[in-house]
């Protein structure tokens, strides 16, 4: 292969790229929105949680710390006895350990955990990366609707994220 045309073609590629606009997004002045399913942070819907401990057990890193207590709830019907329900005392996720794998969200049988694409929660102190119950509840506001599925997909009954 003669040397010169190959060398010139390479120069042409860099020259053409120089003339096209750069692809850099200047974060933090300009922010790109992550996709809907992006695994940014886990949010907790406390009223759904029954303290079954499945998420804490299945977590590969054991980064979820749960403590619960038993409480009495009013009976379903008139004249019945009060029901025993479990309520959360403490539900912490340690994001310094979390692998963002999503197993906890998947195994929760009561739809209490959700993914949210929020990612800007870095802290100065590593201890602040332990998000407690109230902070996890705040993340619920950022949880988006699950995206519509592609054509040809079968709609899941009682779909969970």
């Amino acid at each position, binding site marked *: 292969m003669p040397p010169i045309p190959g*060398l010139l073609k*390479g*120069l042409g*590629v*860099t*020259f053409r*790229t*120089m003339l*096209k606009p*750069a*692809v*850099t997004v*200047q974060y933090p002045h300009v922010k790109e929105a992550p996709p809907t399913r992006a695994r940014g942070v886990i949010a907790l819907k406390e009223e759904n949680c029954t303290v079954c401990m499945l998420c804490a057990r299945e977590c590969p890193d054991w980064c979820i710390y749960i403590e619960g207590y038993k409480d009495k709830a009013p009976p379903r019907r008139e004249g019945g006895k009060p029901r025993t329900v479990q309520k959360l005392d403490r539900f912490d996720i340690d994001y310094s350990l979390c692998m963002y794998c999503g197993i906890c969200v998947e195994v929760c049988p009561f739809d209490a955990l959700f993914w949210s694409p929020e990612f800007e929660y870095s802290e100065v102190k590593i201890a602040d990366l332990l998000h407690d119950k109230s902070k996890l509840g705040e993340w619920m506001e950022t949880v988006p609707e699950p995206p519509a599925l592609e054509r040809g997909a079968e709609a899941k009954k009682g779909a969970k994220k």
Partner: protein
Amino acid sequence: MCLTLGVDFGAYWATTLLKVMVVLGLIPAGAIILGYVFLLKMMSHMQSRLGPMEAGPHGSLQLVADGLKFIQKEDIFPERSDRFVFAAAPIVVLLSTFLLYIVIPAGPRLIIEDLDTGIFFALAVSSLSVLGILMAGWASANKYSLIGALRAAGQLIAYELPLVLAVVGVVIQAGTMSLQGIVMAQADGEIFGVGIIGNPFLLTQFIGFALFLVAAQAELTQAPFDMPVAESELVAGYMTEYTGFRFLFFFMGEFGTAFAFSAIGATLFLGGWYVPGVHGTLADVLGPLVLGAKIMLVAFFIFWFRFSYPRLREDQLQAFAWKFLIPLSLLNIAVTGVLKVAF
């Protein structure tokens, strides 16, 4: 120079001091301009990115910030190093850059010293940097620096020859070695009787221009000839042990020399400060700007090759110099000589 301007500064030392100040200001200014436009911005856009944007508008003060950062760093000497040679090496490199600026004309009367052997002096002085590099490699007391420095010395010496021989063609055509004289020869020349744009030697000496660009690329240890510096494949070359302002001297030396070589290339082949139709005092004002534009053009080519090509291995680049560039440049001289006598 000052007497022709009609102003009498008085003593010889005052004028010399003025000239020294001008050159000392030019080196970092030239280095910063080249570094910003080409290294920071042109390279970034060729790589589809923006480059520095935070320091100053569009990152224009980035190099100033880098310079300040380097100056405030700790001055470290390796334990076994030869302290005097270690400290002197960057100064030798910077000295050769400094001496290069003396003969470059920026206008009909704007030249630090119009030597009769202008271009010969410039090329001779640019070889001093090889000494500085060898000193740096030896004094670092680091065997990898030594290997890098030896490779650099071999490369720089090999590519001196095509550089010099490429320039000989221009000297034959201009009839003088003085850079001011070469600019005048291009200004007053004619192309087949048409004298409107003078006779830039690029038209007849295109082979010489190509050789000059390639050899200058190698002299500046830019890719594709950056084996000495890209020892960062293994370790970091002759500059490994240098920190702080000593490294800044090497960096300024590299970019200052790039600026100077671009200026010499623009002067030899593109007509220097001359723009058709402008003479007299106006040329003194416009001259530096015109030269600056031509410098940017030549430097554009040098850096364009740097960002687009991988690097040659040491034996390959020696073979390229000795077996291809030197015979080509000798052929160029022969043809130029014959044509000069014939026409």
